[in-house]
């Protein structure tokens, strides 16, 4: 660490001088310089104020009990690690197949060849299933703590339901909302127009854009049969969300908390959260994006 910079100032040494970490001869030289240098004296004063503020505010914290209890339970009840074990251990319940394991999870024991066959079979089955009117949708309940993106969606939903959230764009037209989101550079959800044969009354309300560090997130509000519904969408890389769904399928995680149902899934490089207080598990809210009667039939099975 140079004592003197090219400009003759001792900027780099001021912190360690203030902390008392410089050898005595060096400290004496810095002190001498600061006495005659207004700039370094000001710099030292600024560092002292910064240190004082940091020392006052950055200190020990106690983990909140709900978080602590939840994590501890996950750890103690988890499966012990072993060579080649799931790297997500012991938080298996963070995965979509938490409480109701997906049949796909049991295929981990297959070798490369087995995987290849299974993948091809899944693709074929998925495609066939879809065209036969049976899209492959998995809905898995979980009691694991929600991730930040879902918590934000829940908070914004409640804020909106209480009238405390001002939308950036208000419209009852799905096409207009889509266009506005597109122009705003936010992720665009596949919002459809009210299908004539759909018994549910779907009324879009408007949208807003949230800025995430990794990109923008969109928030769309609408009502289904008078119940407020919030859909948040972000690029999967911009937030933490559930694992991506298998090709030709959709794995949806359901979490009920404080009277609200949240459905989360990742597909096509985007993560979605759907929050509502609709009857059942809120799956009716999926109708906003899926007017296809075959999808409605699949949803109605849950």
């Amino acid at each position, binding site marked *: *660490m140079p004592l003197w910079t090219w400009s003759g100032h001792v*900027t*780099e040494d*001021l*912190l*360690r001088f*203030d*902390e*008392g*970490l410089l050898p005595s001869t060096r*400290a004496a030289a810095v*002190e001498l310089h600061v*006495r005659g240098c207004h700039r370094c004296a000001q*710099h030292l004063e*600024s*560092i002292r*104020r*910064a*240190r004082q*503020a*940091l*020392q006052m*505010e*950055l*200190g*020990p*914290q*106690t*983990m*909140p009990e709900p*978080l*602590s209890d939840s*994590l*501890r339970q996950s*750890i*103690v009840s*988890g499966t*012990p*690690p072993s060579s080649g074990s799931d*790297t*997500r*251990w*012991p*938080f298996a319940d*963070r995965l979509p197949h938490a409480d109701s394991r997906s049949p796909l999870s049991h295929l981990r024991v297959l070798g490369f060849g087995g995987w290849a066959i299974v993948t091809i079979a899944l693709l074929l089955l998925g495609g066939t299933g879809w065209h036969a009117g049976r899209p492959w949708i998995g809905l898995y309940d979980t009691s694991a*703590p929600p991730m*930040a*993106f879902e*918590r*934000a969606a829940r*908070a*914004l939903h409640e804020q909106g339901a209480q009238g405390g959230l001002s939308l950036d764009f208000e419209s009852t037209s799905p096409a207009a909302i889509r266009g506005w989101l597109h122009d705003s550079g936010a992720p665009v959800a596949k919002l459809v127009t009210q299908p004539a044969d759909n018994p549910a009354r779907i009324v879009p309300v408007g949208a807003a854009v*949230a*800025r*995430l*560090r*990794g990109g923008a*997130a969109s928030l769309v509000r609408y009502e289904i049969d008078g119940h407020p519904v919030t859909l948040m969408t972000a690029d999967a*890389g*911009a937030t933490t969300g559930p694992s991506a769904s298998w090709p030709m399928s959709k794995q949806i995680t359901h979490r009920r908390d404080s009277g609200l149902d949240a459905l989360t899934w990742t597909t096509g490089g985007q993560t979605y959260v759907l929050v509502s207080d609709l009857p059942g598990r809120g799956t009716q809210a999926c109708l906003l994006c899926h007017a296809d009667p075959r999808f409605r039939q699949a949803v109605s099975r849950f």
Partner: protein
Amino acid sequence: MEEDLKASRPTESRASSARRPEVPQALLDACRNGDRDAFGELFDLCRDRVYAIALHYTGEPAAAADVTQDVFMRLFSRLTQFRGQCAFMTWLYRIVANAALDYRRSRARLAPLDEATTFASVAAMQGDEVERRQNASQVRAALATLRPKLRIALVLRYVEELSYEEIGEVLGASSGTVASRLSRAHVAFGQAFERIRKGDR
């Protein structure tokens, strides 16, 4: 002036390591052998320290919860890889630092939520408490402006009171590099802090 120029206090001599928990080798061995009660014990020993770093780094309880969960997920899934080449706590700090640096914090819409919560309860506070909350909020906001590598160095220094050498071990840098980072971090923090304070007046 004479007195003003003296070093404010010798930080390095603080008994920081005395505050750090000793993790018994037997406990680590038990964890490696899949003893679930041992996992719980290790969690109890480290949880508050992990959470404190995550909270001060992210500035948001919700984000801190995500980072904390990620840390313990990484810790327990990689425990069998820990060979004792460094102190366990150094290894843990490394996991915490990596998890924090990897975390992409959502901003904008999320930040005002915390502020709204803070302002909602301001009316019920006494004058001192309002000032303290405001100061804490300004420190958080100033920290948030720092680049991740500078911020994590500050957090390790002030929350865990690690020495320059220990921070270097955690971040994979020399103590000279750490000194330089901390120096820049203080300058950047100081400037941001002053700017935010003036803006709040």
